[in-house]
């Protein structure tokens, strides 16, 4: 099921979606599963904020911006998305790899 969903989506060499507009929550769930992230409400809060920020700013939010604009702390971000919070959140949200260095 997850594999079927992922097979229908175009990813770049680093596993980020090529077309952010093609993202759906189902795809988000499938990507999270592939990344071994068990999505909770707190994950969704971050993912939805990242989508919203992308739609208004045209690029994924930096980690610092996520912690400033949502009630998710830095510590929690690292717990929710271990191994690279900003890029894993962007990955699940169907966005490009964030380029901000903060």
């Amino acid at each position: 099921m997850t594999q079927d969903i992922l097979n229908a989506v175009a990813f770049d060499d680093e596993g980020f979606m090529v077309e952010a507009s093609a993202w759906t929550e189902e795809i988000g769930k499938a990507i999270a599963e592939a990344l071994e992230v068990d999505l909770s409400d707190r994950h969704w809060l971050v993912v939805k904020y990242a989508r919203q920020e992308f739609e208004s700013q045209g690029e994924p939010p930096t980690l610092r911006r996520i912690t400033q604009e949502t009630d998710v702390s830095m510590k929690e971000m690292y717990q929710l998305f271990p191994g690279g919070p900003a890029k894993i959140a962007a990955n699940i949200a169907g966005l490009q790899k964030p380029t901000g260095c903060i």
Partner: protein
Amino acid sequence: MAKPSRALHQSSGDTGVRKLALIASKGSLDMAYPPLILANAARMSGIDVEMFFTFWGLDIITKKKMSGLNVATVGNPNMHPWFGIPTLLGAIPGMSAAASWMMRGEIKKLGFPKVPEFMEQLIDAGANVYGCKMSMDMMKLTQDDLIDGSTVLGAMEFMDLTEGAQIVFV
């Protein structure tokens, strides 16, 4: 084209977890940011980080000093092109304060946190922060003078901890 996977997010290659050791030896405002930014970038990339603060670098993690770091306007070769302050004029009283004020403004514009908040953020991000024991003895500092979450450590112990790590000295 590659499907998303955990492996794609790890910068470790085939050798296990990559580790970065940063040694911060300078305590001026302009020299405090590079190690902090690099440490943060490493943690955001899933790389383990060990930070050793030694000599003047200790100011960055000393509670009483970390908020008041300044830019030196004398003997700082970066003053001329960036701030337009020739070395001689840099000696005028108030010049260092003005340059520091200017730099804090630029840092804020870029959305970077101030030093105390940046350090707290790094500790929350899982970076390990150490104060150099010898420098602390020299400056009459104790664990209580350092930010919460930091540890006092000898240089040799730091070497043990950073076996196999990539070392950056600032």
